[in-house]
């Protein structure tokens, strides 16, 4: 008799545990409000990307097409993947002195791991992380970027 009692209580417990699980999934079935699917890219317009999100390195230019990069190569040294290559040139200041300046800021997006070490290393805050994330292209060479805009120059007063 004890065996039968145990047998039946076993079955009862098993069935009730199964019903509990079915209750959970069933309750979600009748509550479509709980659906969490994001309809990307339909929701691109109202998507919120946090301002700290690291999508790619960009160089900030102001309205006069001036940037703050002195070409010091601190970012290049800080980068663990050789993502950044700084090409420098020598400018002549009005006083006639020769001064090292940025020629091209080469950025390999395909190598970048968005670790933010270059931005941390930059002494003049010339570069920052942008929130773009749709980086896919058809050709890998398109990921090689020049960050300083053509014709841009060093902002006055930045050393």
């Amino acid at each position, binding site marked *: 008799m004890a065996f039968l009692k145990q047998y039946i209580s076993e079955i009862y417990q098993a069935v009730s545990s*199964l019903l509990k699980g*079915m209750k*959970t999934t069933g309750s*979600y*079935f009748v509550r479509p409000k709980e*659906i969490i699917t994001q309809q990307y890219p339909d929701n691109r317009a109202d998507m919120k990307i946090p301002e700290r999100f690291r999508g790619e390195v960009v160089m900030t230019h102001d309205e006069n097409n001036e940037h703050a990069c002195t070409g010091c190569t601190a970012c290049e040294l800080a980068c663990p993947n050789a993502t950044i290559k700084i090409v420098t040139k020598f400018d002549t200041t009005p006083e006639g002195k020769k001064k090292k300046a940025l020629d091209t800021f080469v950025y390999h997006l395909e190598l970048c791991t968005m670790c933010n070490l270059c931005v941390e290393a930059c002494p003049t805050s010339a570069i920052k992380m942008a929130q773009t994330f749709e980086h896919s292209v058809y050709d890998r060479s398109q990921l090689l970027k020049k960050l300083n805009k053509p014709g841009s120059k060093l902002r006055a007063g930045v050393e």
Partner: protein
Amino acid sequence: MFSLENITDSSQKWLYATFNSTIALVLQCVIVMLLVISLFAVLGLVLVLMERKVAARMQIRLGPNRVGPKGMLQTAADTLKLMMKEGLTPDGADKFLFNLAPFVVMIAGMLIMAPIAFAKGFQIWDINIGVLYVSAVSSVSVIGILMAGWASNNKYSLLGAMRSGAQIVSYELSAGFSIVSIVVLAGSLQMSDIIASQQTGWWLFRGHIPAIIAFVIFIIAVTAETNRAPFDLAEAESELTAGFHTEYSGMKFALFFLAEYINIFIVCAIGATLFLGGWMPLHVGHWKGFNHVMDYIPSSLWFLGKTFFLIFLIMWFRWTFPRLRVDQLLSLEWKYLLPISMFNLLLITLIAIMGWHF
């Protein structure tokens, strides 16, 4: 009132009036064949979409929603894709058996369609041993699965097929016992008689608790027989990648896939026929008005409603439960379901003999 019965009757009369009886019979067969095949296609599309939508809702997702309005054409697009895919046959496979297997599974599914009453008077073959026929033919599909597993020359397939064989053979028993308990109550093996015996109420409600137990066991057993989760050991995704149909691709894979859903439909249709009265409307005792209103709903809708309710139940199982292990699967059958259903059959026989049912 629109009724499928009128259509079948009038078309049969017209056929026999226009042609001599042999040609009429042949034409009838052709019509039935076309109907069954198109039913297969439609059911496949609908059930796969339903499964995906049900799964999505339970998993707090949206499910297919891009192809067609609300994703309705998703399965049609998938079928198109599968048809255009190359049907690969592995190098070491037994080519004949490998290619035959999906058709065996498919044909087994088609054969069981015969005695099912889809609506009042809408039945392919009202054979007098209908229930026996169903349980006999439903075992044939396991041969196809074993064939597929063996012929693929893949160890995953083989393991899946072996599991499937053991599983279907054992669950056949308790499914059979559950069916027999209704046969005992109804006193007939013929589908139309069983449905007619439920005129005053469905056996699920009339047979006291034993009938409910039989129903629960039937649902569990057929879930196992159709290789559905939580009994999907034959294709256990995380263990055997895809089990017996690992090596299948393109349309041959689609046939297996289709057969799975058709089998679900069939077992649910049988469940609805035996326990929920088939196309018989819901009648409650002496509520004349209520019963009258229920009679206005077409019998085909009653049948489909009950069937799809059972299908939903089986889908609900799938998206809730983890899979059993192979030895647990068998011990569930032999240690729990079989003894219970045997004892249950005794009770039902007692009820039937004493006439205790409502």
